[in-house]
């Protein structure tokens, strides 16, 4: 467990913020795409289709859907997120990832902003928890397009107030 936490901490230190953000003149296929990075991504996580076929969650016109509906997700974080009395930051933390056609998630990336939407770094006691908890969710909704399972981008945005989760979006 300690080794796992240490590796996650190192990972967070390394990435600091979202690696998908590119300079305007250096776009990927789509805004927000997350290329595989062998240094940080799980080799076991596979796409069902090609990289060029990864969609956005809303492309399937079902909106943001969750296993057991959204209250299930809220309960999960409410039950497992431990408020750190010394970490009183506010703002937004987004964890974006890909869900494959089997409902498994991978390539998680984090983005952090203060209350003015300026890039910032939250206390690692907050980010590590949110990152780890999000990765612990084993299954996400399987979405289809034209009756075929798709890979899609999804994200969780945590609205933080004084170190506590105030809301989870979308």
């Amino acid at each position, binding site marked *: 467990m300690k080794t796992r936490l240490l590796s996650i901490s190192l990972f967070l230190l390394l990435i600091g913020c*979202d690696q*998908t*953000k590119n300079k*305007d*003149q250096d*776009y*990927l*296929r*789509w*805004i*927000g795409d997350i290329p595989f990075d062998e240094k940080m991504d799980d080799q076991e996580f596979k796409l069902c289709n090609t990289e060029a076929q990864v969609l*956005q969650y*809303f*492309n399937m*016109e079902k*909106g*943001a859907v969750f296993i057991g*509906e*959204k*209250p*299930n997700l809220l309960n999960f974080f409410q039950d497992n997120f431990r408020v750190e009395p010394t970490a009183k930051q506010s703002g*937004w933390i*987004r964890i*974006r990832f890909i869900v494959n056609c089997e409902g498994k998630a991978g390539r998680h990336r984090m*983005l952090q*902003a203060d209350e*003015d*939407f*300026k*890039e910032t770094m939250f206390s690692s006691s907050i980010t590590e928890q949110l990152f780890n908890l999000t990765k612990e969710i084993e299954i996400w909704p399987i979405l289809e397009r034209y009756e075929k399972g798709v890979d899609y*981008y999804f*994200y969780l*945005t945590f*609205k933080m107030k004084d170190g506590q989760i*105030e*809301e989870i*979006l*979308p």
Partner: protein
Amino acid sequence: MILKRDKKQETRSMTKNLVSIFERVSIKPILLFSLLLALFSLPSSAQPNCELFKSQGNLKKAEACEKCYELKGLYQFSKEFQTILDEALEIDSTFAYAYRAKSVAYLKSGDFIRWKELMDKAVEYDPEGMLGYRGWCRYQFFRDYEGAISDIEELDRLVDGKIGYSATGEYHLNIAKGICYSQIGQIEKGIEIIEKQIREQKHFAGLYDYLHLAALYIETHQYEKALEALKQQEEEYDMSESAYYQSLALLELGRKEEAWEWANIASQKYDEGRRMHDGYTHPPHKIYRKDIDELIGKLQIVNGPSTSSGTKIEDGD
């Protein structure tokens, strides 16, 4: 791939014109919304009027604007789409529309940092045209209630109250502002704003206006008013949520038999998929299966085990 580019000024004027037309022909509000939403989704509607810039002698802006004709058929997330907008901004770095169009993919992918940078630029160069959109997005995508209120109120000052509708066309921005106030603990103020907007002669009800109002009445223990609002809601758009809040209000008023019936209607409508829906996020006052089951469970306890067998329950027990 569906392109859903946004616009502002045209939206406002189109909305006003359509409202005026449909008022004259007494069209049903739900149909009006369907038509409005369909129109808002048309890619061509996003393009500003380049001729207007020319007629104003603003040739650089006109050129940047015409560059955006090349966006037709491109997906707003794509590098081609973004690159064309970059080129438009190279022609005229004050072309607010291009910043806004660029921002949409960042908004929808949850990149609040880049989205805000771009929308700040858009607002800087066209506050009247962009503040309402930025405010709406702050509410819809990030639950930045204070930021949304600030933007909508600033717009209100700039355009003398004619603030218009959300980017989706479903909410007058005053309704959105009222919801925002209610979500930061100022429920009475939120109710007051929504009530005032609904009383406006030219207001046409949004899909969920009365539902939000009813939910806020319930939060402030005004159950009879909630029932009145829900009657109006049923005329606009009947869904699981309206039946659920109807049941809640009736339960609080001691009308248990009716509460039971409405809870079951809520359950049925939920299963039929008649629910509040947003293509990107979950709106406030949306309910879930868990909420309905808890309400039904509570009614079974309140009314006793005979409830589920269909035995008549006397009101006021």
